[in-house]
């Protein structure tokens, strides 16, 4: 019996928590959660509890901060004041002190939110749109189309994610005289490319199971065109699964950018990102740990909030699904 028969309903490979039968697993991006318990009973039922609201609140807060950064009453993130260099928090009214080059850390973190969040959201959007579309097509049409697309996903997933992103950014956007915006664009593209196969597989799995349902057969039987069915019938049901993974994905990309910054190919300085503030702060770790610790804390809160909400969303739709 073929183990990757495209006539199978749901490919085990598409459930992140179960070991796949193919040569690649989306374990990195979706940290093997599926089915494991969440914090608190409310979360398990798919409802926002106290933690859920706090998480949401935090995300709204930093998003607003990021969007409104230019008009907020904070110091210029690029302005260097020698006397401020490496000073601890609450020096001269600088809430979080200064970084290695005498720039206001608080301000840089807020502007860093702009870069990190923009990068993460855009990259995942690419993943959702491209990956989601490809996954939808693969899962809906199956057969040959599915075979080819799955092979493509497999090949992409055969690279360790960080290495692939690293390679793409290095090759295309790290030479002499590369501009900050070029770097940013390629960061988005690279991280987007890396997230496409993951989202594609989730979507494909979800589509495979939904496309078998009766209401789709019913739509087909009245002669509705495939495209219409795909988008109006199947897609709405597939979106929740995608959304949950997307939230988790944003968290992963934020962290990935940090890793790339440490390796020298993150967001181009002097534009701050959470990752590159930490990377820059490495050299001052012994004397001024706050430069590393504060952005770390901010990333921690953000990733925590995204993970938690991602789990709640998934539980919410799982609960609804099992009640059907």
């Amino acid at each position, binding site marked *: 019996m073929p183990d990757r028969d495209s006539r199978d309903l749901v490919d085990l490979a598409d459930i992140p928590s179960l070991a796949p039968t*193919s040569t690649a697993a989306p374990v990195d991006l979706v940290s093997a959660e599926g089915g494991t318990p969440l914090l608190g009973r409310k979360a398990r039922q798919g409802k926002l509890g106290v933690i859920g609201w706090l998480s949401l609140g935090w995300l709204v807060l930093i998003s607003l901060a990021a969007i409104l950064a230019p008009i907020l009453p904070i110091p210029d993130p690029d302005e260097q004041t020698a006397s401020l260099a490496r000073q601890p928090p609450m020096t001269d009214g600088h809430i979080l002190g200064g970084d290695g080059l005498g720039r206001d850390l608080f301000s840089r973190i807020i502007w860093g939110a702009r870069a990190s969040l923009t990068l993460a959201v855009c990259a995942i959007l690419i993943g959702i749109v491209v990956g989601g579309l490809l996954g939808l097509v693969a899962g809906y049409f199956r057969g040959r189309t599915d075979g080819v697309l799955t092979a493509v996903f*497999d090949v992409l997933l055969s690279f*360790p994610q960080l290495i692939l992103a690293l390679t793409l950014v290095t090759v295309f956007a790290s030479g002499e005289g590369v501009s900050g915006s070029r770097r940013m664009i390629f960061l988005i593209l690279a991280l987007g490319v890396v997230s496409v196969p993951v989202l594609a597989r989730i979507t494909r799995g979800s589509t495979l199971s939904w496309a078998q349902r009766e209401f789709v057969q019913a739509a087909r039987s009245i002669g509705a065109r495939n495209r219409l069915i795909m988008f109006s019938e199947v897609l709405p049901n597939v979106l929740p699964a995608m959304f949950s993974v997307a939230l988790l994905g944003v968290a992963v990309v934020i962290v990935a950018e940090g890793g790339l910054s440490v390796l020298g190919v993150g967001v181009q300085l002097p534009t701050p990102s959470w990752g590159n503030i930490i990377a820059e702060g490495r050299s001052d770790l012994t004397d001024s740990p706050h430069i*590393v610790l504060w952005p770390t804390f901010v990333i*921690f809160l953000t990733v925590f909030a995204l993970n938690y909400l991602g789990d709640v969303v998934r539980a919410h739709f799982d609960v609804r699904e099992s009640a059907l």
Partner: protein
Amino acid sequence: MSLGMLARRVAHLLVVLFCVTLFVALLTSMLPGDPVDAISGFASQEQKDQLREDLGLNDPVPVQYVHWLGKFVRGDLGNYYSVTGSRPVMDRVKDALPVSLQLMIYAQVLALVIAIPLGVMTAYRAGSRFDRGSNATAFGLLAIPNFALALILAYYVGVRAGWLPVQGYVKPSQDLPEHLRRMALPTISLAVAQVAVYMRLLRSDMIATLQEDFITMAKAKGISPRRVLWRHALRPSSLTLLTVAGLNVGALIGGAVIVEVIFSLPGIGTLLFQAINARQYVALQSLVAIVAVGYVLVNFFVDILYAVLDPRIRHARS
């Protein structure tokens, strides 16, 4: 496993290897502008032309690929180019590879050693305070970026408390205790995130297994709960965990690169970092090739392993 299944998997492997190596082989030609300028801008025109010829950049794509693949398979990983001359990449890779492998293996082992008992215990006491506390901690740990954790550990444990060194590497054959001391912090940094993932995975599998009839039957034999847990429940539950541990090598590789850089360990990750900074694209290409191909092969073997272990279980559980 049947010969047919094996053949299909091998075919799959070959296709993937082909695509991966093709992509890597063409990396240098994908550099914006003139690749040769990027690689050795300081060289004279003659040298550049020679280099272009050597790298096969004048040839059509299929030839380039075969050319590169031939060299790669023979161990010719290209050179580092600098003003003072060129040195083969392979020399440095030979010394760096064991370091990286040690780091990843240590981290994986440490993660499993911690995660397995925790997973078993939290499954057994599901719903208790211990369980909820562990889960919350795991959830929290997953939210700390690995590079930040490495830096924080390096700072607090290494510099402030001075318990463990934060830089450098010593070969185990030279001085085993010192080797272990230097590898300690990097290993812990890498293992922490894995612990959280593995623990939760094992826990959920164990909880499902503990509800099975044969566990009740084992209990009815009068054997102690500890024995039931470890000798009866663990084995069937551990299959997914072991497979995920195998496939998680990808995350481990990415993490290892960062950890090596932070702790100045002379592994493949550091080489990668140096190649990027020094714009040594040929070296970069070879290093990426090694990592990618290695990862594909590991996945392949884990796949086979799972299929070998699985049918019996699948059959028995159906």
